[in-house]
């Protein structure tokens, strides 16, 4: 049996003394797409952070390919090198570096000096808008452009699993469509997805499976086409109706 790319077993996590997750178990198999839905403050972002090694669980284990990564200390870089990439919530670019430097930071490590130019070209191909602004300091980009930049950084590396947290938040509808198109393209190319979305409709359409997070616990898991009904029956406060 092949181990799932990512597996959380009875994970508890939080910030200082505050617990945000209580005994969460969740697995993402290779090439699978999972939508994680839940109300504001349910702990979705925290789950995404634990799943990418950004914070260490206070109990339970996080396994990548069936093996524990890191040792108690948060070590996101190990997860990235194991093929788990995370496009975090909100602004997530280096504001003082240029667009190109932001990209080069990831690409040079992943592809080496020789592969750098090619990787940059692929990023600019994906988002031509970034190509026009390659020497601009990232802090001066618009919100949408910053989101593209952080997406470009993770997409070009073609990770085996992409964790995307509220990608569409604050983006113009046209760009949202474009982002989801990109996601379905890389999904078709074999990348597994763990998607956290306010726009539940979009997310459920894209994914095979859904998990519902409430107050730090997963209360329902199943095929994504059944998720809509479940959500409605629970009168979920997600803001956007499915």
């Amino acid at each position, binding site marked *: 049996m092949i181990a799932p790319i990512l597996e959380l077993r009875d994970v508890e996590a939080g910030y200082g003394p505050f617990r945000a997750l209580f005994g969460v178990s969740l697995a993402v198999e290779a090439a699978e797409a999972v939508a994680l839905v839940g109300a504001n403050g349910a702990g979705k972002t925290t789950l995404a952070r634990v799943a990418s090694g950004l914070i260490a669980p206070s109990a339970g284990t996080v396994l990548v390919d069936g093996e524990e990564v890191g040792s108690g200390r948060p070590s996101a870089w190990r997860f990235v090198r194991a093929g788990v990439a*995370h496009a975090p919530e909100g602004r997530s670019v280096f504001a003082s570096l240029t667009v190109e430097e932001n990209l080069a930071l990831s690409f040079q490590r992943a592809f080496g000096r020789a592969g750098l130019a090619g990787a940059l070209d692929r990023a600019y191909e994906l988002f031509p808008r970034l190509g026009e602004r390659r020497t601009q300091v990232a802090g001066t980009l618009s919100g949408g452009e910053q989101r593209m930049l952080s997406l470009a950084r993770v997409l070009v590396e073609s990770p085996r699993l992409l964790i995307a947290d509220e990608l569409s938040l604050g983006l113009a509808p046209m760009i949202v469509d474009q982002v989801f198109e990109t996601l379905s393209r890389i999904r078709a190319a074999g990348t597994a997805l763990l998607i956290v979305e306010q726009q539940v409709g979009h997310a459920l359409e894209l994914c095979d499976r859904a998990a519902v997070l409430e107050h730090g616990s997963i209360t329902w898991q199943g095929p994504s086409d059944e998720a809509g009904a479940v959500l409605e029956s629970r009168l979920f406060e997600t803001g956007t109706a499915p």
Partner: protein
Amino acid sequence: MTGSADFFEDLFRGLLQGTPPGAVYALIALGFVLTYKTSGVFNLAFGAQAYISAAMYFKAHTLWGWPKWAALVVSAFVLAPLIGLVLERLIFRHLRTASAVSKLVVAIGLSVALPELFNQAARFTAVAGRQITGIMPDGSSVFYDPFGVYRFNRDELAMMAVALVATLLLAALFRFTMIGLAMRAVVESPRMTEMSGINADRVSAFAWALSSTFAGLAGVLIAPRFNSLVSTDFFTLVVIAVAAAAVGKLVSLPRALLGGLGLGWFIAVFNTFLPRWSGDHTWLRPFQENLTPSLPFVVLFAILVLWRAIGREREASDPLSGVDPPPPALAALERHPKLTLFTRLFGVGFVAVVGSVVWFRAGVLWMHLVTTAVIMAVIYLSVTVITGMAGQISLCQGTFAAIGGFTIFQMADRFNMSVLAAALLGAGVAAAVGAVLSLPVLRLGGVWLAIATLAFAFFFDAVMVKFSWVGGGTTALLTGTRVPRPLIGPIDFASDRAFLVLAVVVLVIVSIIVIQLREGTVGRTLTALRGSEVAAASIGISAARARIIAFAVSAAIAGLGGALLSMHQQNVNYSTNFGPVNALFWLVIVVALGARTVEGAIQAGAAFALFEPLILKGDLLVWILRGEDHLPGLFPLSGSWRLVLFGMMAIQFARHPEGLVEHGKRRSAARINRWLEAREGAAS
């Protein structure tokens, strides 16, 4: 009137003369900023690191006879980065989420402990009278005069060349290399850097090694300018670096570079012109003699006080900064009533037993030590007020204490004033100075307040003490700063026993004042403010008043303690008791043992005065073993182990910000509470 041609020639000479030291200041400022930016550590131990490299160079070249290049490589390019790596790996990596102030305390501890550790490990002692040589062959005896106004010697040329090359390399590193890019990324957000697949710990370690190399190089280059290798000289060097770095608000590398050079130029030009002016105006003479050595501190203080924007540098814009919240302090503990009763009884019993042993059995030496402990506890209560209650770091408590001591010296010496009245006056003067000082520095907060007070302490040390109306001037050099013991009616406190009683009475009164202050409005306002820089920035009227009061009360307590200590030793003994480095020591020992409570200060006083004779000299063991013959050959241990231990204490502090003793007490109290409750549960 001399012509303007002369003026420009003098100016030019001053600038040329100031360039070599300016280059070294720039070097150390660059390293300092690099560390601060990449790890948030305000590394006051930088001077200690520079000292170690300089001492290693001296040992290898002068004592062992190694060639200069080999000594340079080992001291600046092997030992220096190694120390940086070790510090990062063993200490600062684990303090990433600690507050800037905690990191500062750790760095202060290291600044005292590192030189001692090196001296112990390498069996190095400051060698007086041996020439400290630069890195060039015939460095100080071959001259070049490119412009016909100032003759550079070879060592000076080397200083400038090394600084130039190092700066260019650093710029190239940032501009063109992957590790440089990664360092810039880590500065902004270590967590996000990790999400690019880069090990941020490695990057920080590299930055530490690099900046420590800068410190080491600066130490080796600057050493020939000192008469002998003493670590405190190098501490001054780091204050200069801070002044240079402050020009760039601690974050800009190019401006730190300019700041270093500018300081070098400013000092040299000042020295060129001041004698000329003071020839015309004799009243400038004392300034000329006294001000020059302290110019960097004056500049630093002026920058901090006059530059309105400096303290308001925005905090790191790390979007993921919320991911690692700082480790919370333990919550206040509800004690079981039985436990409270027991600890009270035990405390009273302990004091009674120790008191009577001292009273009836102690010889002159022990009576003296115990009195010192009591007086130090008084002084330490001043740290309890300013740091424990107000959460501010003041590094000029020694200065306030010195003001107390000098006041009674002056008053008793000149006006034959009653010594006790003079002591109260001294506390008042210290309070006034504290209040006035707090006005401009209050808005700074955090590490800025710490360095402003540090600059003030150095300024007092270099300038004020030299004035005859403060430190006694030249007469004090001959007769010392003598202070009599008080005499109240029939009681003559010249008796050591009577004086001990006086000290204990003062300690009790001051403790009560501190507790009253803590429980009152001021204390509650301060508690609400503590640790919240946001609240401090938008500081309201009542909050500002509370802080000024805290500053003034703290200064008054320090002044009173300083007066007592001077009476006790019947001499102010300024440089032994109250020099700028002493205050660093005091701060660390108090916060490490517990700055929030009166007991913490008392324990710190006891540790300060009694640790060395009791533990290191082995007297406690002698007493337990009943005789010197059984004492293991290990004893007496060298006094510098005290300083090493002190460094370790500082490191431990960062993990337990409530203080080590407090931490231990809470843990055991929690355990006993549970045990008592379990027993009661079983009984009912």
